């Protein structure tokens, strides 16, 4: 059986649309009948990553692959990259500019939250080239 695949282009610097893709992924998972807990974990992890992509990287692409066993989501951008991934994984670490914080984002919980709500998280980043984030949620 083929996996259900979803693709979204995320535009940058448009906070009003930020979260659209994670909302659509959530809707698809509900229609498929995944358990509420799995849906919540995917929705939160992907939302955080999507916001990061809008705030830091001027948008990018999101590709999700859904099977009965697991949900894999790859978020790819060509933004500035993360110089120190270890530091970025710490709760509260934030580089968000003031205008972004005023909107309630940038509390430094992005990557830590993604890690908390996913079963596997891999971050590949090169300064000046971009960042790719691999999120996996296992259907327990």
């Amino acid at each position, binding site marked *: 059986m083929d996996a259900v695949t979803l693709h979204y282009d995320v535009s940058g610097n448009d906070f009003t649309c930020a979260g659209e893709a994670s909302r659509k992924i959530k809707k698809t998972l509900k229609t498929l009948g995944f358990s509420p807990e799995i849906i919540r974990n995917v929705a939160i992890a992907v939302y955080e990553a999507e916001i990061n992509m809008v705030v830091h990287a001027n948008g990018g692409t999101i590709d999700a692959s859904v099977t009965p066993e697991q949900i894999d989501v790859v978020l790819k951008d060509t933004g500035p990259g993360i110089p120190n991934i270890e530091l970025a994984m710490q709760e509260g670490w934030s580089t968000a500019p003031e205008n972004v914080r005023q909107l309630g984002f940038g509390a430094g919980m992005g990557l830590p939250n993604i890690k908390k709500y996913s079963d596997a998280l891999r971050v590949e980043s090169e300064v000046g080239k971009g960042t790719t984030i691999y999120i996996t949620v296992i*259907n327990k």
Partner: protein
Amino acid sequence: MEKYYHSVRLDKEKCQGCIHCIQRCPTQAIRVRNGKAIILAARCIDCGECIRVCPHKAKYAERDSIEIIQKFKYKVALPAPSLYGQIANVTDVNLLLNALLAIGFDDVFEVAAAAERISDATKKFLREHPEFSRPVISSACPAIVRLISVLYPNLIDRILPLRSPMEEAGRLAREKAVRETGFAPEEIGVFFITPCPAKITAIRHSQESEKSSIDGAVAINDIYPALVNQLGKLREQSELQHAGRIGISWGMTGGEASGTLSDASMPVDGIENCINVLSEIEDEKLNDIEFVELNACMGGCVGGVLTAENPYIAKSRLKNLRKYLPMALNNIADSPLAAVTAEKRPEEIPALKLADNLKEAMEKMNRLNEILSTFPRLDCGTCGAPSCRALAEDIVRGYTSEQDCIFRIRAELEGAALPKSVEELIPPPFRQKKNTDGGDKK
């Protein structure tokens, strides 16, 4: 009884089979089939948006006529707080309550009085149950409770486990009548004066108790003329009013939230706004909020489809009426929360799932996406479904076929067995202009 009772109904004679209601329905519960609208019972939440929008008045709420009260020896009216804002120049709530007696009721029990008990109990609940997931969601609007059951079942656990003011009022009114008259409980008829169809559904098929404490519902706009008439003739008045500012304020957005006396309570109104907020709660984005009051109608209950007055006017009248009243006249004092706890929890209504097992659901989802890619994505509604996606979903569920799409038929008539691209399906005015200079579109 039907599995899912709904007070919102269709008058087939009046229905023209147009697309106003299907596109307005917040849960995509309406389709046009054989030239008439049909309501998908599992999805309908009785919010009444279709009643509001239908230009032919083909959607209506099944309700009781005032004659039904004659079946009972002793009749009690339960006016919703929103009733108080319906009539001009009523400066005293007591006048209005006496007018209810004049149209045939033996007693009046204000839902606003029961609402004050629920406000008191909500405060107590929030204080005594810090372990209950935040934000706690109000249980008062039955359209919202049903919305959660259908679209947000994982939020059922957050619904305040207390009775709605209406149910509490029904229970208290019957107890009072038994005590004061000596009639048996079944000889007493308790009737809600309702601003909306969702409340009628909640009485006939309760989500919070096995059987509602209320015997019937009379619509505000049905008794409105009789009330106005009696108000002009009133001579004697008995003292019936026993609700204060907090109770009356429940008739409009913000009343219930302010009744919790917490700055971390948030009122929301309008079904689309409520859907957005529920989605945010689901994503754990509102965890710093204590309590959310959700009203399906704009303005709160004064915005219900069975009211008689413009909601903004009704709201300003409510504000004037409550001005010189005491804060509250009812509380649950030292009685335990159990005294106002709902008998049961709302149940999940599995209307969204494509199939019972994931494998089958995924096969259907892949087929759905494939079918959707051949549709014009104009969401024109002429297939009888609210969107191209909804039609694709109906097809994989086996309800209908691609032949419902007018653009598919048009393309076939134009010669091609199937259009080569989706672009060809779209009628000329909707086709995007090709860029001729090769540059990016501005």
